[in-house]
């Protein structure tokens, strides 16, 4: 994948498939330690130990339309290319957490890419699921939480309303731009 944000979009779809109703995405850029850590955590149906062990293997999937699962092996390969790793913690009927690490400055590290479009895609694809997106650069933090937005909108207006999506786009763009000191 050309962007890490595309891996995030793909892996968060696994959470949606697992019937999660809350998905937490965090991107932590620690420039002092030269690390980039991405985590995706859900409260979906989870996996047992045996499944977790097998899931990094591209020939494991529970889907029926195709024989190989690719999302997790692709992210694992992206991490390993950059002196990082992918850790999977999961518990049946509790949830799953993926933690992907990278050396921030590694020459083979794909750019983070467009997190705003990734969040918008997730939101319009899963109307009833809440998403939290936290982005940390060194100590500074930006937080986006669809539950707050739903609260402000009341019961009737959905997140998929075009004006709401525009607001979300600007909100995330602005938050990330502030984190980066004014440049996107």
């Amino acid at each position, binding site marked *: 994948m050309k962007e890490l944000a595309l891996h995030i979009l*793909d892996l968060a779809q696994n959470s949606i498939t697992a019937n999660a109703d809350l998905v937490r995405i965090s991107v932590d850029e620690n420039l002092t330690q030269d690390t980039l850590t991405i985590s995706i955590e859900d409260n979906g149906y989870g996996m047992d130990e045996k499944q977790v062990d097998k899931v990094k293997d591209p020939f494991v999937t529970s889907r029926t*339309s195709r024989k190989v699962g690719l999302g997790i092996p692709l992210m694992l390969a992206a991490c390993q290319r950059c002196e990082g790793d992918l850790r999977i913690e999961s518990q049946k009927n509790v949830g799953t957490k993926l933690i992907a690490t990278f050396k921030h400055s590694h020459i083979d590290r794909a750019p983070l890419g467009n997190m705003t479009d*990734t969040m918008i*895609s997730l939101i*319009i694809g899963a109307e009833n699921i809440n998403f939290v997106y936290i982005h940390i650069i060194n100590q500074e933090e930006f937080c986006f939480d669809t539950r707050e937005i739903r609260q402000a909108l009341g019961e009737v207006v959905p997140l998929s309303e075009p*004006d*709401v999506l525009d607001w979300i786009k600007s909100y995330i763009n*602005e938050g990330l731009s502030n984190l980066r000191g004014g440049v996107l």
Partner: protein
Amino acid sequence: MKTLKELEEIRKRTLETINVRKDRTGTRVVVGMATCGIAAGARPVLMSIMDEVKKNNLADVVVAQTGCIGMCRLEPIVEVYKPGEDKVTYVKVTDAKALRIINEHVMQGKIVEEYTIGAGDK
């Protein structure tokens, strides 16, 4: 600065139009968003479809997403369902192609044959 207060204004403003959207019986545009689709460029295709639907105020068009339909080589795939018509499957869609699909097929009812599945075999 974007504030939550603005959302309350959006809420007041949209409450009236919302009922129109609720009983949408119009066209469904479905974008494949599994690993294969995303890797092939489905996200910008989805974004340009959303933008075009908004720009043209197509209130009765529903944009949805689906998983892998088993034709990974042909991704990004976009399916158009018009009421009372057969499903049309577009393959290897780009954002430029998506614009034509919305403008010609969704809005004017003219299928963009050259982008449909099977068009290459003819």
